[in-house]
């Protein structure tokens, strides 16, 4: 029984040594298909980004234009009012 214990320890050390880091690299011409990086997500991401960029820009422009047009309308009514009531002061910029 006393002999078995050192043998077990020795075998464990051998197993541990066998699991140590890779000592050399083996050259291959092609990596397996399972290891290759898939292209589809990259293509989809590119297409999605184009849409996203345009939608965000168009939305921003539409909002800016709407805001300016609304301000123009408000100003027009403010200008007309003082003229009809005479001397209510100049319209203030929001």
């Amino acid at each position, binding site marked *: 029984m006393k002999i078995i214990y050192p043998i077990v320890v020795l075998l464990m050390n051998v197993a541990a040594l066998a699991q140590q880091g890779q000592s050399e690299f083996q050259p291959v011409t092609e990596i397996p298909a399972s290891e290759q*990086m898939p*292209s*589809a997500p*990259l*293509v989809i*991401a*590119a*297409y999605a*980004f*184009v*849409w996203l*960029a*345009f939608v965000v*820009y*168009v939305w921003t*422009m*539409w909002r*800016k*234009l709407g805001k*300016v*047009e609304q*301000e*123009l309308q408000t*100003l*027009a009514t*403010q*200008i007309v009012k003082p003229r009809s009531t005479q001397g209510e002061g*100049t*319209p203030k*910029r929001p």
Partner: protein
Amino acid sequence: MRKAVVPFFVLAGLIFMTAPILIARAPFAAGMGLDQKIFYFHMPPAMLMLLSAIFCGLISATFLVKRRPLYDWMGYAAAELTVLYGAIAMVTGPLWARKAWGVWWVWDPRLTMSFLLWMIFISYILLRRYGGPGSEVLAAGLAVFGMATSPFVYLSVNIWRTIHPLTTVVPTLPVDFAFPLWYSFTGFLLFYVALLTLRVSVEQQRALLDQLYLESEE
């Protein structure tokens, strides 16, 4: 003005929705996989970024000579679109490079010069936004400088050693590749025209608003 640009947006949207069908039917390029399909969303915005920079420079030079506000508005709109199209090219390019070259970005002459051109037009926008009165003249000068950089960006692949595809690729494309490419380019171009018109109209309305405020104060 809003109604006038709607057909452009609709047509460009239809082209963008149908383009993937043509792109999927296009053959694969030798030595490249599915990632080469990004080319159809990368080359048109990159080319339009350069054309937009040249347009912005020319219109800004005209503004510096004639000082008509319309040229300034067009220059501002073109600068913004140069940045937008540049952003699309700067994002789609690395997505393709990651697979084709194994890295997202390299400081290759074409990539570096494109990035610099993009930064010049970002500076233009920052100058216009925070530069205060008179910034439109300074920005116009910057746009002329940006325009002068554009030919170097285009020719950089032929002048210096680079891993980026050369300028000879597009003119020599077989029809199977060229048709989806120019179809996609048409969509990007239509979007450009529509966005430019819309952006100029925003500036026009803003100028009218400023004028009305000034008149009401007098």
